[in-house]
């Protein structure tokens, strides 16, 4: 089988990518590419993590912003209370995100389809409201944060964040790839197609849904954790901004969710377009482009970019004989 060779190629690619990212932080002087690159890497992590639940399992999570915001505020709370270093903030965010994911997973017991999606929006708003009323982290007004000194070998905090986010994105991709190739992936695909038939074929649907929710949640919260240090500021309405939900969902669906590479492509493509548009035109226009692309793709190219590229996925699009 060439599975083994694929694995070697994948990990070699990961190593090359990380070495390239690290050397970029050592060579490039200008900070701007890192500012922009950070956002794109963050979108890769979000889109890939979203796709574990939304793509593989078919549960459309509108609450990416809930997990993201929880990640941000776990980091903020921890930093303010104990001055914990970034790594600890991220780890804590992942744990809290996983717990929230468990709660969201329990929701799948009672609801699916649009009911699940609406419930995730509800969860996001409720958590946001609590944070708004949480004085310790600044309430609705938000909170300013002073970055601690940067660690070697980096010469600027943004460059370090860029590298950290690259690690998080790679982690998300590696986990998504693992799930896709393992029987968990097949089980999720089965329950997405037909939950009862999957159960009756031996698939432990609840367990798999919980696993998918917890992993997806942990990854999203972890990707959100460094955002506070990136902006040196956090407030509930930006940390819990619904645009994280649209972006993650749109990038995953536009890229295609049948393979982990789909969300990665979607995030790179739309993320860089967004960066470009936000600079050249306005941030409203980039949300508009995202929305229009999303609608065009779900209508016209149901399997996303990878469906257009690889006929194997197009064949499975369904509907057309």
């Amino acid at each position, binding site marked *: 089988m060439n599975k083994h060779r694929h694995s070697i190629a994948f990990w070699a690619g990961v190593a090359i990518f990380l070495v390239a990212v690290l050397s970029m932080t050592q060579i490039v002087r200008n900070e701007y590419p890192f500012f922009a690159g950070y956002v794109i890497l963050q979108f890769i992590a979000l889109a890939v993590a979203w796709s574990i639940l939304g793509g593989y399992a078919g549960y459309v999570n509108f609450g990416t912003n809930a997990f993201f915001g929880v990640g941000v505020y776990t980091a903020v709370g921890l930093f303010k209370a104990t001055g914990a270093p970034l790594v600890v903030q991220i780890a804590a965010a992942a744990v809290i995100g996983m717990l929230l994911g468990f709660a969201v997973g329990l929701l799948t017991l009672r609801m699916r389809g649009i009911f699940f999606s609406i419930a995730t929006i509800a969860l996001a708003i409720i958590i946001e409201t609590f944070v708004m009323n949480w004085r310790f982290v600044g309430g609705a007004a938000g909170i300013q944060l002073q970055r601690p000194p940067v660690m070697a070998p980096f010469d600027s905090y943004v460059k370090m964040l860029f590298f950290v986010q690259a690690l998080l994105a790679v982690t998300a991709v590696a986990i998504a790839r693992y799930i896709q190739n393992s029987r968990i992936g097949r089980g999720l*695909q089965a329950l997405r197609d*037909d939950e009862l*038939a*999957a*159960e*009756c*074929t031996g698939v*432990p649907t609840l367990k798999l849904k919980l696993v998918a929710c917890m992993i997806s949640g942990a990854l999203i919260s972890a990707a959100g954790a460094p955002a506070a240090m990136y902006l040196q500021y956090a407030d509930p309405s930006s940390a819990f901004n619904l645009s994280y939900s649209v972006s993650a969902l749109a990038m995953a669906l536009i890229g295609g969710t049948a393979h982990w590479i789909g969300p990665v492509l979607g995030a790179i493509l739309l993320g860089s377009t967004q960066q470009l548009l936000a600079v050249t035109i306005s941030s409203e226009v980039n949300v508009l482009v995202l929305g229009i692309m999303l609608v065009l793709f779900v209508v016209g190219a149901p399997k996303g970019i990878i469906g257009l590229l690889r006929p194997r996925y197009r064949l*499975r699009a*369904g509907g057309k004989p």
Partner: protein
Amino acid sequence: MTVTAAPDAPLLQVGTLTKTFGGFTALDNISVDIRKGERFGLIGPNGSGKTTLINCISGALRPQVGSVVFCGEDITQLPPHLRARRGIARSFQIPRPFKSMTVLENLMVGLDFAAVGSSLPEEDVAMSILTRMGLASKAGASTDTLSQVELRKMELARALAVRPKLLISDEAMAGLSSSEVDEVLDLLISLGEEDITIIMIEHIMQAVMRFSERVMCLDAGRIIAIGAPAEVMANKRVQEAYLGT
């Protein structure tokens, strides 16, 4: 879990099963034992509770009263996937394939999750099941390209991938031509010869007669007759239930 059933104990024991939906009683105090290796026919008019009964056996529904004992183990509270792992597989009245998968991948789900402990590579096992069901040429096909009879066969093949001790076939022949009915029936009978116990729900009477060693007829959630096929068919209440409307 310990399975310490006597060798001649029934494979499946359904005891005083009652299932209600709101005020409607779908199953009313159903008790029946099914022997190992038996070919069991389940008949009854529409809405008589056949599908509810097999939903209670396969775990899709939980009864309010009564128990389901399989291989000496009480499985009444187990979710469907654990029943599948213990060897209960089913097909659905309206086929429910995994639409985004190929035919072969459909079978792989059962092999991955329910049929533990096989030494052969999974794909070989899946291919041998498909060959047996006459679907080998469709292994790589998407399920929405299958004909009705192929879909029915695929459902049975997927159920076989679970390596069932008990196979429940829910109207696997509905909507098929008479030659296709014979084809599916032959497959089911040949499975029965391999020590797989089969419960078959069917409306096509010749099929039930030819297939079953024993037939049970439900009407309005109650057993109105059970016994040898000819006996049940001759029963007055069965004839009334079917023809008296």
